[in-house]
């Protein structure tokens, strides 16, 4: 079966918004990159570039430690 593909080119949100530093204290922003289970969204889903995905993952892990965002949800 053919996979549905989007015709739009994926653009990294952080690149387009000119975000150079991802703050781990900004739980609201980080939550948007989690799936309903609280896992980090993959690049395929989020369209984030490799550089920002690395920064994002580090920020999410810090925020989880401080209970700003969940490790997991039921």
């Amino acid at each position, binding site marked *: 079966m053919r996979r549905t593909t989007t015709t739009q080119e994926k653009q990294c949100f952080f690149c387009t918004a000119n975000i150079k*530093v991802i703050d781990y204290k900004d739980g609201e922003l980080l939550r*948007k990159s989690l799936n309903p289970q609280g896992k980090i969204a993959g690049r395929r*889903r989020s*369209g984030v570039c490799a550089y920002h995905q690395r920064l994002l993952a580090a920020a999410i892990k810090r925020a*989880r430690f401080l209970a700003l*965002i969940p490790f997991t949800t039921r």
Partner: protein
Amino acid sequence: MESEAKRYEISYLVSPNVAEDDVVRVAGIVTRVIEEAKGVVGHINEPKKRRLAYPMYKHRFAYFGYTTFQISPSQIAEIPQKLRFEKEIIRHLIVDEVVIPPRQFAFRASWQPTEAGISTKRETPRREERPAPSAEERAKAIEHIDKRLDEILGTPGEQ
């Protein structure tokens, strides 16, 4: 050899058993510990009560605050050692200071991922909002449009 001071940031969670007006005192403990380790305190963000994403020591809420400071890397290890004995601080994290460029704030909380995870909406309006045109300008514009229309369609008398 004394190494050069580096900028750090400590964020911490204060136990909810502390009274709301007593939180500043606990923030003072962090400041004191930093100063005891020969650090220079920068910005202090007062702890604010917030709901935790998961319970910690059976607490559902805690005060979250952070403090920036400068200290030589050789001294940094003293801070967690001392904070261990402060029962009111239930957890802390020391990291390199997160300096957010001032221009970045405008884009906060504007991300709306679509189902495919692609945001097609423009984050900012294309043009800055202009002030509403005055009555005179509007009249002029209408006159101009009328003139152009006449040119395109031809004057009504001709047809």
